[in-house]
């Protein structure tokens, strides 16, 4: 899932300073799971803002609404009406959701409440780690299910750099060296031959942004995009 974290409160408060009627729009999917922008976090942020503005003698009207997903138009329609009474929208979605929301017809200006960080996993409650850089060319079948693009900070494709010390990463000694881990797992599985060949240069052309994927079944419908 997409992992995000809330921006520092001071930054959010400063961005909202000129406005008196604020609608906070939450997102009920990834950012709710990672405790950054779901219904509960929207409520907390609203209370914090009301309190801070009240203390500053600049009270605000704050509305709260959380949709299932801000990255899906299907769930966005109710917002068109909801924003009418507000000056500004504060979105607690990831960067994709913020952009989708901001592009809606008749939308008020939208500002983000979160910094979107990575595609990751839920290790434990409140503990998330990155796993995927969305590189368009998955190597996991060759590398024992450990991603060299993501788990090696240098994204090396052909074995470890010279900086690892006792299997720990040069960049952050708390982390395992991805290539040592790949080697160890494949050795245990008797599949070291998979990483013998030299992997070629990564096809970065595929990662030119913004990416577009059209599902096979919809090629005819959206053919113009190809």
């Amino acid at each position, binding site marked *: 899932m997409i992992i995000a974290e809330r921006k520092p409160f001071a930054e959010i408060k400063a961005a909202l300073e000129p406005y008196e009627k604020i609608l906070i729009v939450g997102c009920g999917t990834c950012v709710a799971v990672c405790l950054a922008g779901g219904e509960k976090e929207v409520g907390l942020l609203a209370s914090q803002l009301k309190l801070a503005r009240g203390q500053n003698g600049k009270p605000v009207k704050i509305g709260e609404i959380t949709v299932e997903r801000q990255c899906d138009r299907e769930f966005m329609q109710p917002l068109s009406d909801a924003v009418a009474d507000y000056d500004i929208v504060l979105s607690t979605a990831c960067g994709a959701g913020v952009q989708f929301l901001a592009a809606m017809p008749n939308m008020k200006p939208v500002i983000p409440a979160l910094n979107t960080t990575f595609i990751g996993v839920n290790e434990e409650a409140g503990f998330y780690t990155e796993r995927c850089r969305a590189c368009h060319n998955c190597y996991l079948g060759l590398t024992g299910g450990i991603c060299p693009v993501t788990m090696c*900070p*240098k*994204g*090396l*494709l*052909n*074995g*470890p*750099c*010279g*900086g*690892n*010390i*006792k*299997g720990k990463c*040069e*960049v952050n*000694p708390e982390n395992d*060296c991805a*290539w*040592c881990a*790949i*080697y*160890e797992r494949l*050795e245990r599985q008797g599949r*070291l031959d998979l*990483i*013998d060949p*030299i*992997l*070629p*240069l*990564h096809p*970065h052309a595929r990662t030119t942004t913004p990416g577009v994927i059209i599902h096979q079944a919809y090629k005819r419908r959206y053919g113009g995009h190809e």
Partner: protein
Amino acid sequence: MSKLKEALEGGKFPIVVEIKPPKGINPEAMLAPVKSLNGRVTAFSIPDNEHAKMRLSPVAAAQLVKAAGAEPMIHLTCRDRNRLALESELLGAAALGVENVLIISGDFVNQGDHPDAKPVYDADSVQLLQIAKGMMTGFDSAGQELNGKPQYYLGAVAIPEADPLGPQLLRVKKKTTAGVDFFITAPVYDLSKLQEFRQKLGAEVKMLATVKVPKAAEVDQALEGKLRKVYSLPVAVAQELKADDPAEVERKGAALAAKLLKEIKAKNLADGVYLKARGKGELMAAILDQAGI
């Protein structure tokens, strides 16, 4: 033709010394060892933003070394350039007659003085070796024909004391497959480790062993069991080097470097030596004097 290649392939036990490009535009200190040691050593090696700290460009420094009448070796790191820039730099080196290139992945940006810089690593060191080899046949990595065929003598890094060793041997094997001409090791103080590594690689692989004058801080860390490096500094050696005055540590370190250099040569533990003495010409000269070179 590269004098380093001639010396390494002719079994002449070359010495390559590392000089330090300035953080600025005044190259005099960098060139001091070139002027004082030219003729005594085979080549002068120029790091590329070493430890991710920004310094003068190696290709420009190489031209200055050549102008001083000596042979340069440039390092080329994958950290700071995409494939276009790497290839362009390789062409620039060849056009200036610089053949010796040490291909390295490069320390990560968080180790250096521009920690917010974007780390590139478009190619890794294995792939960059392949690119350079391909350029020698007259083609760039996109398959486009070059005007002329550059000549390089290509080096890469090997870590004798890597732990675990398996992944490092995989990397070394891939560098060999990619066409590396020689390896330069990480610093070695325990020569039995160098010997073991050499046996694993095979004597046909050309190798320069790195002899380094340790810093006073490294000596202290080794004594406290806190040295976090890809090489070890045995406690017994660190005890011998320990002194209150850093200048004395340096003097003892130079004596140690001379001893290591002599032993590597006498016991044929490597095909040559790569000397790191903080770019100080007088220190290098003292080491060479004591080693009888």
